[in-house]
């Protein structure tokens, strides 16, 4: 039987769909870890990014902090926390949240920062208080980049939740680790494919959400969008139909 056949056979085997080791259980575990971490990441990164973007102060530190967090190795952090704290939900959620924060922070900050200054001025001119300017004007205008950051964060977290299985947690990574220990390649590959499919489905879903939620007025390219702050370039910015922010926010798609 070819490798492809063996993997497919593993995936359609009904015994792999029931019980505490079954695909549905592992899926729920995987979503549980990912969701908790994203929630924590959002709670930390979005207010921080919005505040710094709104006041315009501390942008340098925010960007530096996000870049610094990005350089932390995920597996190392996870193992460190498990060795310190033991096997509980805390190490997994913290390690994954650390992954989620940089894209969310960068996306929120860039989004708020990039809101057309004239729009903000108009809001202030209308007599809005600072809080209203932020909540009712800047954040909705920042949605494309913010949601782009959310997509990048979600992708990172779902992909990395697979390695939580190495430190004894569940999720789809469990098939990869268990399969490796008994040299069962079909199990390993099935686990890998399940993770990939989950990532693709979630990415597509979020793209749909982005399309639905972002106000139509923001989808048309404005001739005066500024390049995001991380972009250290002196190119005169020529607006194009599919204007995209810098690759530092890799995966951030306002489209």
């Amino acid at each position, binding site marked *: 039987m*070819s*490798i*492809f*056949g063996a*993997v497919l056979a593993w995936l359609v085997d009904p015994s792999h769909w029931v019980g*505490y*080791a079954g695909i549905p259980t592992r899926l729920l575990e995987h979503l549980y870890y990912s969701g908790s971490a994203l929630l924590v990441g959002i709670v930390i990164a979005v207010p921080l990014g919005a505040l710094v973007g709104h006041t315009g102060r501390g942008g340098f530190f925010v960007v530096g902090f996000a870049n610094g967090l990005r350089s932390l190795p995920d597996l190392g952090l996870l193992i460190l926390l*498990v060795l310190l704290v*033991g*096997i*509980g939900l805390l190490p997994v959620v913290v390690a994954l949240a650390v992954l989620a924060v940089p894209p969310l922070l960068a996306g929120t900050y860039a989004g708020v920062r990039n809101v057309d200054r004239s729009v903000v001025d108009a809001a202030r001119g209308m007599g809005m208080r600072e809080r209203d300017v932020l909540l009712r004007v800047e954040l909705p205008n920042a949605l494309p980049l913010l949601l782009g950051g959310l997509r990048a964060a979600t992708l990172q977290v779902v992909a990395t939740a697979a390695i939580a*299985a190495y*430190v*004894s947690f569940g999720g789809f990574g*469990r098939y990869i*680790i*268990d399969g*490796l*220990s*008994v*040299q069962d*390649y079909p199990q*390993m590959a099935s686990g890998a494919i399940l993770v990939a499919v989950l990532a*693709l489905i979630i990415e*597509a879903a979020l*793209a*749909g959400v982005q399309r639905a939620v972002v106000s139509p007025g923001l989808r048309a390219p404005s001739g005066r969008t500024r390049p995001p702050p991380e972009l250290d370039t002196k190119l005169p910015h020529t607006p194009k139909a599919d204007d995209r922010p810098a690759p530092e926010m890799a995966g951030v798609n306002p489209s």
Partner: protein
Amino acid sequence: MKRTLSVLAAASVAVFTLVGCGGGGSGGPLGGASSAAPATPSGVIRVGSANFTESTLIAEIYAAALGAKGVKVERASLGSRETYFPALKDGSIDLIPDYTGTLLQYLDKSATQTSSEEVYAGLRKVIPAPLTVLDKAPGEDKDAVVVTKALAQRYNATSIADLAPHCGELVFGGPPEFQQRPDGIPGIQKTYNCAFKSYRSLDVGGPLTIKALTDNTVQAADVFTTDPSIEQQGLVALADPKNNFAAQNVVPVINSAKATDQVKQILNAVGAKLTTQTLIDLNGKLNAPDKPDPATVAKSWLGQNGLS
């Protein structure tokens, strides 16, 4: 979006076609250690070890003993038996310490021998060429179902049989492969009618498993009998009256081509001195907070026993 989906569909078809044609090779993508190393050059013995400290320790003992008498050695760290045994067979490694009972069951799933002599005799019969086993050591390191003292008292359990009626409420922890080994979860279920609520894949009887037991993440676990933590942490290894776990004497498994008389004599002399208490003591040394190198501990033990 539609374009992305069509690209994805086209790509999947392409990928699956490729996979259908390609892949396979010798042993498929999981050739394990074979890819990492070609067959060892003659005159050099590559000593492998599994993914737990005791295996590393004994491998270092073998390597140091051989090296002290002028035999050229190399070391390699591998994974579970399912990973290293193919490497032994294809010559990627030449020598590894193993345990008679579980090795016998790995080679012959229907094996039922449990006593030390019977297991060893059975093993000698089924060990495939070009491999051979040398003398077994007196030291044994068996898997055991281990629980906390509190739990043992609560259920008034001194053996696995006593625990059986309560197994359904307990989570069991152990290495991933324990779920499938004949004397692992399947064996416990068959021998004692004990089916655990669920299984938590931890490490190979190591610090993570001990911690999971003591903080009640799991209520029972697979821990090795030579682990000093059992005593240090106030744990209880439940008795195994029906002999689900067969005798587990330490034994060198070696490629016959490399098993010269000198090599055999060195390894058998080392084995004769490896008692269960020795294993417990040396494991205790390795567990010390400053994490001494297994090679160093091995060498000093050899020196103390006049084997180097």
